[in-house]
């Protein structure tokens, strides 16, 4: 397998896996959390590169610490969680940049940690991403209805006698695993594009959770492949090309959903007056 075929395979595996986990992230409104996680893993990746160990391994260690912190933060008020995620985001990024400046002769270029280098991914990187995707699919097959219940109605979920923290921890864990396995392809800065954009695009055109879990990975894989092809055809960097392809899919979905909402094709929905719908 040549480097280009390998890059295409990596794009499909990483794109699909990130898209699938992204569906959970988007419906649970944890996108900003995931964004903080991507930047927070940056110092771990730099440290791993300096020590000569696997970059995903270093990022994973950093993310385990961050998941523990964020799982705690997520139980606090929503406002507090957002602020803390913002601090983790900028703090992590700054720590990574500082670390990179302090360590001379780093064997990995800063650019590849930040925006990825899918043309040089290893078999191990692909295997890791595939494993994460498979684990995510198994978890959702087993616990998907519970995840849906707790996301849709956290109070009702607890009132029914379920605990919320295992669901929160599971989704955060999958998110962190997905971020770490996406780093080789799209780096710390662009990883969020593969997680959020395909799911957000799918969310605009499908109406069921199950449909979302199918559509988001397909869009993610397509964005990955398109990005790699564009990278070769137009001689541009692959990571940004993949991120832009994912963004393009989002804009396309946005256009489709806007067209659908035109009066001619609007579905008849029994809307009562605003006063009826008001529940305070």
């Amino acid at each position, binding site marked *: 397998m040549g480097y280009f075929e390998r890059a295409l395979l990596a794009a499909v595996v990483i794109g699909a896996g990130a898209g699938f986990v992204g569906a959970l992230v988007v419906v649970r409104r944890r996108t900003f959390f995931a964004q903080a996680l991507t930047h927070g893993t940056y110092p771990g990746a730099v440290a791993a590169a300096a020590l000569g160990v696997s970059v995903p391994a270093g990022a994973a260690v950093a993310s385990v610490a961050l998941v523990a912190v964020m799982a705690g933060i997520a139980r606090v008020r929503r406002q507090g969680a957002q602020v803390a995620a913002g601090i983790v985001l900028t703090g992590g990024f700054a720590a990574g940049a500082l670390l990179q400046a302090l360590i001379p002769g780093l064997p990995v270029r800063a650019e590849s940690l930040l925006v990825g280098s899918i043309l040089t991914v290893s078999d191990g990187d692909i295997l890791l991403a595939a494993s994460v995707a498979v684990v995510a699919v198994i978890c959702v097959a087993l616990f998907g209805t519970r995840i849906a219940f707790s*996301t*849709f109605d956290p109070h*009702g979920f*607890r009132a*029914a006698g379920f605990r919320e923290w295992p669901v929160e921890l599971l989704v955060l864990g999958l998110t962190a695993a997905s971020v770490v396995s996406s780093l080789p392809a799209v780096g710390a800065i662009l990883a969020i594009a593969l997680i959020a954009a395909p799911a957000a695009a799918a969310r605009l055109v499908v109406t*069921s*959770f199950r449909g979302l879990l199918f559509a988001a990975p397909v869009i993610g894989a397509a964005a990955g492949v398109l990005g790699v092809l564009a990278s070769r055809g137009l001689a541009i960097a692959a990571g940004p090309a993949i991120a832009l392809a994912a963004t393009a899919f989002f804009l396309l979905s946005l256009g489709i959903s806007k067209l659908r909402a035109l009066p001619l094709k609007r579905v008849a929905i029994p809307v009562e007056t605003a006063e009826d719908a008001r529940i*305070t």
Partner: protein
Amino acid sequence: MTVPPVLRLRGAAFTYPGGAGVSGLQLDISPGEAVALIGPNGAGKSTLLKGILGLVPKTAGTIELGGARGAAPAPIGRIGSAHAASGMIAFLPQSAELDPDFPISLEQVVMQGRYRGLGLFRWPGRADGAAVRHALETVGLAELARRPFGELSGGQRQRGLLARALASEPALLLLDEPFNGLDQANRDALVDTIRTLKTRGVAVLVSTHDLELARLVCDTVVLVNGTQLASGPVDEVLTLGNVQECFEGLEVELDEHTLVVPGHEGH
């Protein structure tokens, strides 16, 4: 009364870690009985309901659940009450507390009422599907089963959540301000449903501002405002003096058929 109560509170108090709460609760609810929980905003009505569910810590007194299925009431603890009560209590939250953008159909929402009875690795079976359909028919929404929940009107969402509560086949149903923002048609549908449940032997505890509604479907009224002020049969408790005391001097009108608390009927 020979039938043991489904719920019994004796001097119970439920308090949030921050200090807000409700205390002095004395309450028995029998199978087929409906109790109205009445008080102004911030009186602790939701706190009491969530306390029964084990979501707000009990800080005094006793709470006993049981009786409806032949078992004697059993005391339950602070931490484990939500689990001890599982399958027995259903809760209708205020619609404002859930995410209307989540992609889920009405029948999937109603099926959530069955999860507690399912093990972790068991999928819903035929009996669960039948219970969901039956619950949707009871609230009159069977034809909208596949409609995305977010596309339903406020009243339909409320009835859908009630169907979810019914699908769990509870002995005790807790309703938190179920009539807020409902139009007359949805209100009537909800009243009918509560009456149907009573005939099936379900005990109902409903928090509401709506004094007229308490008259319509409830046997007993409990007035609360931080602490329990009065309780008993509707006609004895819903007196001008009691209601005025409960609503702390807000102007209260009271006539033969309707009771209106200005400024509270549509908060």
